[in-house]
């Protein structure tokens, strides 16, 4: 159930390895001794109840927070990520739960924020708006994004459109690890399917994907392994193909007889008596 202590040299294919990560906010121990390893070409789902510490863990990896304790090994080297810029340089792309877009800037500006393309004609000093706009449309088409214009401020987009922009942005650099914090929470049916397809495409391209979702069906559909967080601690890593959904739910809620499994059992009893 629990993650086995890792050897000093990380296993083959492991891109990202966390050891003993802890993070406190004042009196709240948001993360305690978190262990996690993610391999290239693997989708690792990160699940847990509200407040379990998923977003905190993602932000710690992404350099938004610095861990109080613990080490992070990326690509076989121990790294200290002091800022989001450093995480990006390493090749860690993140879609944050709160999206982190600039409302006053348009879609193109948001997509390329921090890594704008420059035109060679002006010795690389001036922005290449045309090329950025062209590539933006290309990328958004790939995601089946329903965005009417990329030249309107992000403030005027719907929640799902904003989420699509945030996801598109994470794919622009050439990341090795993509972290998606509830990427489908605000998306329509088609866009959700598109994001799940995208996650699978990323895996095929050999990227490591960390996917946070409360939707167990989605998790079981695309994830290879599921890491459960509970009250800021590891509560097991499951291989999806060998695990039943209710075992994962039990690990999330912390008990075998919980509201979710009781409800499921009751329903299956009712179905059984009905037939």
């Amino acid at each position, binding site marked *: 159930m629990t993650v086995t202590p890792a050897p000093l040299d990380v296993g083959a294919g492991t891109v990202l390895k966390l050891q003993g990560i802890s993070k406190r906010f004042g009196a709240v121990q948001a993360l305690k001794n978190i262990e996690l390893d993610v391999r290239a070409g693997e989708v690792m789902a990160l699940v847990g109840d509200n407040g379990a510490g998923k977003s905190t863990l993602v932000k710690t990896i992404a350099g938004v927070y610095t861990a109080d304790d613990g080490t992070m090994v990326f690509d076989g080297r121990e790294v200290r990520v002091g800022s989001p*810029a450093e995480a990006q*340089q390493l090749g860690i792309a993140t879609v944050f739960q709160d999206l982190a877009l600039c409302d006053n800037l348009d879609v193109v500006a948001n997509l390329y924020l*921090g890594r704008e393309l420059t035109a060679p004609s002006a010795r690389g000093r001036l922005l290449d708006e*045309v090329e950025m706009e062209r590539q933006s*449309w290309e990328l958004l088409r790939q995601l089946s994004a329903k965005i009417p214009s990329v030249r309107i*401020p992000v403030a*005027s987009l719907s929640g799902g459109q904003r989420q699509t922009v945030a996801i598109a942005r994470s794919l622009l650099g050439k990341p090795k690890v993509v972290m998606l914090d509830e990427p489908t929470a605000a998306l329509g049916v088609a866009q959700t399917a598109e994001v799940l397809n995208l996650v699978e495409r990323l895996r095929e391209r050999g990227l490591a994907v960390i996917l946070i979702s409360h939707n167990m069906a989605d998790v079981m559909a695309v994830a290879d392994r599921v890491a459960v967080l509970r009250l800021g601690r590891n509560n097991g890593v499951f291989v999806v193909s060998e695990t039943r959904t209710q075992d994962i739910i039990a690990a999330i809620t912390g008990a075998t007889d919980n509201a979710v499994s009781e409800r499921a059992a009751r329903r299956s009893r009712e179905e059984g008596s009905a037939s």
Partner: protein
Amino acid sequence: MSLHGSGTRPQDANPDQSDGGEPANGTTDAAQLPADLQDERLIARRGVSGAIAAFTSRLRSGDLGSVPVVVGLIIIWAVFQVANGSFLSSRNLVNLTLQTTSVGVIALGIVLVLLLGEIDLSVGSVSGVAGAVLAITFVNKGWPLALSLVASVVLGIVIGLFYGLLYTRFGVPSFVITLAGLLGFLGLQLLVLGKDGTVNLPYDSALVGFATRSFLSPAVAYILIAVVVAAYALTRLQGRRARAAAGLSSAPNSVIAIKAVALALVLLIPVLILNGDRGVSSMFLLFLALVVITDIAVRRTRWGRSVFAVGGSVEAARRAGINVRMIYLSVFAACSTLAAVGGILAAARLVAVSQASGGTDTNLNAIAAAVIGGTSLFGGRGSAYSALLGALVIMSISNGLALLSLDSSIRYIVTAGVLLIAVTIDSLSRRSRQAHGRA
């Protein structure tokens, strides 16, 4: 237009012809439309009428840009012209350009700080102390002019970096830092100037000559206009070609032509009037050049994009990997530097530095100019041109009231009224933008 089906014409024999013929060949609508116009919810806007329609709908949604200040400027000029027929005379307008320059340069720095959603209340004092350092080193200490100029500009840079450091390291609000700066640098100015408190600059020095006696000859001014308009039209046409090559929509040639003609008129008419007297002042031209450079820097460079991003959302900018600290440092430094340059120009134009140089007026006029010009106090929205337009408004009021021999009491009250109107427009349009999803 050649239709397909002739069968004999090789595919690529005549690229021009096949280009013209292709759209008729029944490809689907969506495939023909530029990539950015394919969403069917987009209300189609083409040609000149489309450009006008897009402009009015932007206004209605509260994206006012510089429209209010232009309208305000026209009203103010009309009122003063009616009250005193010599207001719009060549002679007075040349004076107006000379008066506008130093406040405008300082306001340009304020625009940058406001874009970040911060404020610099000390620009007046910084301009005063920069002028004092220039006068003391150049006149009393006998330094070469260039060295004195460098010294006072460097002082501006150092002051701005100091503000930026206090802000980024300790998180002291810029309001408080620069309020302290306002007092501190006023004190430093008095200290530097010493007991007499007034230093006259030599009237025949190059600096004073530049600020008071250097004007473009009419021919040079007209050539300059031609060059600017041609450069504008060329960049627009180039942009149009690049967009078309990338499969994106672009403004039709007619719109570009109309805009180029409008630009030519906006430049030509004032220059014609100014040439009726001394002409376009070199100092004012320097200000215009600074405005254009700042505009390009904020709109077309990565640095400027980062400035807007930090002004819109600091956290989003940080998570996008932007070096937020560097942005704050550079903007505070740019603001203080422009304040120092403004102080030097003011000293040169008035041929003296006194204890009153860069006093309360300078400070408030510069800040008011930026806001009146249409740069939002809420950060992330504004333009370098608001410094030019706002400074023109402020100085037109003071110039016009002086022509009517009304004293500063009225001037303060009128300026206050205009400032209030400008801030109210800013707040209202912000609310309207939020309602129209353009916040």
